[in-house]
């Protein structure tokens, strides 16, 4: 019997699993889950990953997180500073392996919307903006989208506005790039010939059926769909240690 694992911790662990050792990984603004995922990956299976902070520190000895993902304290004992324009150059050179991005809407082809609900000329809801999405989604080998509210208003047939490009909005050259979606219910990807969204993992306590029900389109199920691997106690301890104030829960309120 295991204790119930909190959703943010499950998501962090699932996001960390997307990082391979020696990967170069960047996080952006407003990104407590990505920061924790990068920290967990580095302390577990990816000790040699290159960690580029949105706060500009390279491989910092991060000891805790703050409400801002650009807080300069995140750079503690970094080996160097590396500006966002330099990280973007790296992406243009094809040397940024993984990026974490948010989304207010995602659709079945992996398009994301962070710009506006309704019409761009007369927004019903003004969203914060896509930050690096439009730039990085087509050119980064792996983009991990995290979504903390898996509902059929977020997972929609077609986004109101294409901020970040899914598979139907990409050049052929970038069709191979990988999009992975980590939500509060499971992990979705596009590893099928048609490049449409499929359920790869469902989090403990959730199910394929629940995800289907809370998705606003006909989502596929991967042949090898399974329960999301849960983090061990040492990982949960690590997360708690880095985020004693529970900043990671802020997106779930």
């Amino acid at each position, binding site marked *: 019997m295991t204790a119930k694992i909190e959703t943010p911790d499950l998501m962090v662990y699932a996001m960390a699993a997307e990082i391979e050792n020696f990967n170069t990984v960047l996080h952006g603004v407003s990104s407590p889950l990505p920061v924790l995922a990068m920290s967990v990956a580095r302390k577990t299976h990816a000790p040699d990953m290159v960690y580029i902070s949105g706060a500009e520190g390279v491989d910092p000895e991060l000891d805790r997180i703050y409400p801002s993902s650009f807080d300069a*304290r995140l750079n503690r004992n970094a080996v160097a500073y590396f500006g966002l324009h330099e990280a973007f150059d790296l992406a243009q050179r094809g040397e940024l392996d993984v990026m974490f991005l948010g989304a207010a809407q995602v659709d079945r082809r992996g398009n994301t919307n962070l710009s506006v609900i309704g019409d761009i000329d007369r927004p019903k809801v003004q969203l914060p*903006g896509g930050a690096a999405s439009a730039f990085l989604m087509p050119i980064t080998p792996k983009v991990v989208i995290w979504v903390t509210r898996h509902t059929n208003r977020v997972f929609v047939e077609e986004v109101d506005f294409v901020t970040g490009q899914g598979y139907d909005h990409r050049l052929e050259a970038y069709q191979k790039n990988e999009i992975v979606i980590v939500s509060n219910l499971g992990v979705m990807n596009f590893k099928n010939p048609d490049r449409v969204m499929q359920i790869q993992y469902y989090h403990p306590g959730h199910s394929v059926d629940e995800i289907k029900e809370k998705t606003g389109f006909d989502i596929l199920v991967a042949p090898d769909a399974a329960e999301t691997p849960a983090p061990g106690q040492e990982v949960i301890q690590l997360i708690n240690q880095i985020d004693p104030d529970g900043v990671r829960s802020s997106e779930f309120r």
Partner: protein
Amino acid sequence: MKKVLTGLQEAAGFVDDGALITFGGATFQRAPMEFVRELVRQGKKELNLIDREPAMDFDLLIGAGCVAKVRAGMLAFEVFGMAPNFRKKSEKGEIITKEGACQPIIAGFRAAAMGLPSIPIKGMLGSDLLTISEVVGSQKEVKDPFTGETMIAVRAIEPDVAIIHAQKADEYGNVRIEGPLYEDVIKAKAAKKVVVTVEELISNSEIRKMPEATTIPHFIVDAVVETPKGAYPCSCFNYYDADYDHIKEYLRAAAKDQFDEYLDQYVYMGMGRRVST
């Protein structure tokens, strides 16, 4: 070298109504908040704001009615959520906010800093943001003249004024930014005028002891203003951390429709609201 030390009121005079301006820092780090408050006190109008990832600096100006147009990659309050005034005024159609992606903004600054009318970038293809930018005339699909690769040409962004809060400068405008630089050096090079507010004035002889620490040289700086706590409630690395409690107070005031009270208390500071004519 020419002395460029001046007062905050005089420095705010560099910003005309309708000007295209940008600020140093990013979200809650090293934003030139005291200068922003001075813009509000001076009742600036129709400002055109541009930045990669601003936060309270932009939202405060929007809330105070100083802004006509915003172009930002993302404008939000990090984990605290939406930028309240930005959201409200944008949804009411009181400000224009169509465009927004980090790299075209950064690249636009870089083009201006390099003295070029445009530079190419990758990415963007397929995003509706590109479509909008093509209509607006800030981005354009092009072919690389050598490889034929599809690239996005990004038009140079040359702000009328860039305002940067830094840790140190001398009276000539030799500036030391400590810690993360964001695009501040690029913005300073890109802008027509550069105003730098600093925590601390240091002597020119101090500057000369460590030329490698000078991040912006005097000849691209038009005004230096000694402004201790000039980024508050945002952080200034090596001086103070962001005051997240104050930021939450700002958000509570905006949520409760008490933003005017916030302005009175923290911007006009009991000096009475200036009636703009």
